Structure formats: structure tokens, C-alpha cells
């Protein structure tokens, strides 16, 4: 085919790409008439035959969107249930962690992460319900201070346990104020120097009925044989409350009117009957007090005279044990035996004997 001149047959300039842009923009004069006709025919409006497939296209469109909506609707209830189940599981685990009921490794993790009671505190015999309770020992009924700051019973129970352990460590000279385990307690008390008074005033224990000594051997403390204990200096019933959480701390027994910080020595449930109790721990003497022995001052032991009753940290030193020995006339060996018995009672393995028979 011969080459055409730059102008076309009709004398129009060659219609190139640039001319096409102008033609598409609306400048029809740039194209030869025949080309203009062809291009205009290509861009003509829709013919009837070109719109016949609309029904099938709309059907496909509806089907796709219906399936998408169904998938979305199905996923919503599943998400709801999954979220609800997760929340319930978290609540249950949280409550268990606060109560110290999780397995030891998990409880320790919860203690580190969420300041839940540590497993060691639980294992220290700060039983949720001391053995004494089972044996009719002192009921631990911590009373929340009027401040109302401890409305949550689970948190309050944890702090009660912490108070008992804190008191024990303090008596042993372990300087618990610096221990990270007691950080929540220190925080609640407003400082390490206020922990003991906080425990004494914030938690109160209502011990067993007077003379119920039998409720726990410890309960005897204060109730029977210690007039002082009844003096309410705290014989023991634990006014100190905080230690009530530690059944070992024996709050209960203190039948004393008092207030007695009583806690602790526990006669009964006697927190003191933890494994940590040493021979010199006067608290256990209180355990034996069920037998009428003068409960050592031990932490809140029933002995009203206990220094710890109300007024201060229980003095549970070997000196006191000696003093107790001298006051009661019982030999240290017997005292140790009583301590061991108190431990067993606390563990709930042995039914408390009639405290009146002791000593």
C-alpha cells in the first residue's frame, strides 16, 4: 500500500493520538468525517440487545451480598458467646486468686501480677477457715471497720491473712515491712509503721462463745483461764481482727469482752499453729490455754494481758514463753507438746479435746 501523505485523502491533517485526545475531549473537527462517524458509532448509547443481561447480573449481585450478610450475622452470636465466656472465666479466676484457691504455681503468679494472696501465706496455715472452726472453734468473723474501706470480702480475707503472717514475721524480727509479699497490706495500712495498728483496728474477730473453749483448745485462752483475757485487752478474741483471718492467730477465743486484739494466739484455730510456730511462740501457749493455760500473749492470744492484745504487737518471744512457764508452772516440754497439739488441731486432724482437761 503506497504511503499516504501527512494529510489524508480529504486534505485533513493526519488524525493521530493527539487528535484523538482532542476528539475525545469534544473537539470533533479534529477528525476526518468518516473517522468521526466511526468513532461516534463506537461511543453511541446502549442498544436494547446490550442491556438484556441485567437480570442475571442482579441475581448474582443479590446472591453474593446475601451470603456475605449471612456470614456476618453468624459471626456476631459466636463473638458474643466467646466474649461472655471469657469474661466469666476471668471473673472466676480472679475470685479464686483473691481467695488463694488457685494451684500454687498459678497462685504465685497471681500474687506477683495482681497482688493476690501468695500461696505461701495460704500454706502458712492461714486457713480459710481454721480447723478450730470445724471443731467448733472460734468463728472468724472479721468486721470491717467503719471506714468501709474493705468492703470486698475476698480482699478483706486476704488482708486478714496477710496481717496474721505479718504479725508473725514481725515477732520473729523478719522486718516484714520491707517484704514485697506484704506490699498490698502495707499499702492498705498506709505504711509499714501502721500495719500492726491497722491490723488491730481494722479487723475484728468475734470469737466463740465464752467458755466455749472447746471450740478450740485455743479458745480456752482467755475464756477460761485468763481473767485478763476477758478483760478485753484483747484476750484474744481477736479484736484485732486482722489476725482473725489467720485462724491460727486465734482470734476467736478470746472471749474477753474485749476487744482484745486477741487475734492471733488463736487459740483456737490458732493461726499460731502454723508450721512456723516455734517453741517459743507464745501463741501456742495460748493454744494450750484451752487447757486453761494462760494464753501467752502471743499475737492476740487470748491473754488479755497479752501485749499484743490491742495494744501492740504480740510479744511472742522465748522470753515470754519462759515467763509463761514460770507463770503457769508448766514445763517447756509440755508447752511444746501443746503447741504440737495445737498444730494438729489447726490442721483439723484431731478433734479438739476438752480444753478444760488440759493443763
Amino acid at each position: 500500500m503506497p504511503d499516504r501523505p501527512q494529510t489524508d485523502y480529504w486534505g485533513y491533517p493526519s488524525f493521530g493520538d493527539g487528535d484523538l485526545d482532542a476528539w475525545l475531549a469534544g473537539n470533533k473537527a479534529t477528525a476526518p468525517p468518516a473517522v468521526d462517524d466511526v468513532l461516534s458509532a463506537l461511543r453511541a448509547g446502549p442498544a436494547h440487545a446490550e442491556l438484556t443481561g441485567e437480570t442475571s447480573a442482579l441475581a448474582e449481585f443479590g446472591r453474593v451480598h446475601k451470603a456475605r450478610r449471612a456470614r456476618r450475622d453468624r459471626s456476631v452470636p459466636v463473638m458474643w458467646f466467646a466474649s461472655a465466656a471469657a469474661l466469666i472465666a476471668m471473673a472466676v479466676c480472679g475470685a479464686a486468686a483473691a481467695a488463694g484457691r488457685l494451684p500454687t504455681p498459678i497462685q504465685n503468679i497471681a500474687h506477683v501480677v495482681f497482688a493476690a494472696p501468695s500461696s505461701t501465706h495460704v500454706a502458712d496455715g492461714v486457713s480459710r477457715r481454721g480447723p478450730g472452726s470445724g471443731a467448733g472453734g472460734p468463728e472468724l468473723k472479721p468486721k470491717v471497720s467503719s471506714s468501709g474501706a474493705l468492703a470486698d470480702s475476698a480482699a478483706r480475707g486476704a488482708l486478714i491473712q496477710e496481717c496474721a503472717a505479718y504479725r508473725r514475721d514481725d515477732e520473729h524480727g523478719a522486718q516484714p515491712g520491707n517484704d514485697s509479699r506484704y506490699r498490698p497490706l502495707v499499702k492498705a495500712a498506709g505504711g509499714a509503721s501502721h500495719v500492726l495498728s491497722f491490723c488491730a483496728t481494722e479487723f475484728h474477730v468475734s470469737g466463740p462463745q465464752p467458755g466455749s473453749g472447746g471450740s478450740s483448745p485455743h479458745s480456752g485462752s482467755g475464756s477460761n483461764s485468763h481473767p485478763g483475757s476477758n478483760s478485753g485487752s484483747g484476750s484474744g478474741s481477736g479484736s484485732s481482727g486482722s489476725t482473725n483471718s489467720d485462724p491460727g492467730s486465734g482470734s476467736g477465743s478470746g472471749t474477753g469482752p474485749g476487744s482484745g486484739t486477741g487475734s492471733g494466739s488463736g487459740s483456737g484455730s490458732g493461726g499460731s499453729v502454723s508450721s512456723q510456730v516455734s517453741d517459743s511462740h507464745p501463741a501456742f501457749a495460748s493454744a494450750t490455754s484451752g487447757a486453761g493455760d494462760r494464753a501467752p500473749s502471743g499475737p492476740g492470744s487470748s491473754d488479755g494481758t497479752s501485749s499484743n492484745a490491742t495494744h501492740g504487737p504480740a510479744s511472742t518471744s522465748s522470753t515470754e514463753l519462759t515467763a509463761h512457764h514460770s507463770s503457769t508452772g508448766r514445763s517447756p516440754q509440755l508447752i511444746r507438746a501443746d503447741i504440737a497439739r495445737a498444730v494438729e488441731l489447726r490442721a483439723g486432724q484431731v478433734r479438739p479435746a476438752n480444753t478444760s482437761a488440759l493443763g
Partner: protein
Amino acid sequence: MVGDEFAAVLAAAQQGNEAAFSVLWRDGNPALLRYLRAMAPESAEDVAAETWVQVVRGLAKFRGDEAAWRAWLFTTARRRLLDQARQRRRHPTEPLDHVQGGEEPPAPDTALLAMDNLATERAIALVRKLPPLQAEVILLRVVAGLDTEQVAKLTGSTPGAVRVAAHRGLKRLATLLEGAGVTL
């Protein structure tokens, strides 16, 4: 072209509004069919239907203006065209012969032609006489309304090659019209 309302129409269609989708379909299907009838006259309707199936499924994820929408539509159609051509090569029971330049296209069935569409059909027949790249470039620019860059991206060419192909195709078209004495 949908024009200024395209964004609203697209959003409604993506939400499942059938009326909005109908607007998009009525605007795009005639151009799509003309392009496909020029590129693969035996299977234009099938490829168009498959193209719209793909578009419906991907509509919710599409993001862009009207120019991007038309580019996406014709890109999808071209891919379906190539897939069908490959399939026919593997199973040549119904071979799809691509129109080669210079070959006389089969005479369209006059019974199928509507009077109002005669000029369009003749125009398509003329474009089919052009070399494949030239025909495709002219169709994508004139029928689909795509610019040079979009056509280059769609065909896998460069903008310069697209401009050259458009220039030569229009020139050849003019020659064909002159030689055939075609009046539309």
C-alpha cells in the same frame, strides 16, 4: 459515564443496593460488550457475564474513582478473555480465533442486528480489521474511555507504544474508510 454521582452510587452498591449496582451495570456493560465483540466475537456474551461475576465478588473491596472503576472493569474482562483463550487452546473443541489484521471478518448475522445498532456493529467490524494491538488501543480509548497510561498498564505496554499504536490505528482506519467508501 456516571459522572459526579459515581462515588455515591459506588458506595450504595457496595452496601448491597441493587439499584445502585444496576446504574453501574447499565453504564459499563454496553462498552464492555462492544470491546469484547471486537476482541472475541464468538464468546463476547459469556466473557461479559463472567466479568460481571468477578466484579460483583470484588466490588466491596474496590476503592477508586470512576476512571479507576472502568480500568478495573476492562482489566477484569481482558483477563477473563485471556483465560478463556487459554482454556480453548487446551480443549480446542471450540477454537477461538483471534481476528488477524487483514482478514475479512465473518459477515454479521443481519437478523441479529437491530436498526438502532447497525452503525455500531459496522464500526466494530471495521475496527476488527485493524491489527490486534491497534484495535485494542482504539477500543480502550474510545469505547472504554481510558487514558493512555491506563491503556498502557492494561495491555502491558508503554505509554509511547500506546500512542504510536493509536496513531497508526486511526490512520489505518481512515485508509480503510477511504478505500471501502464506507459510510456509516
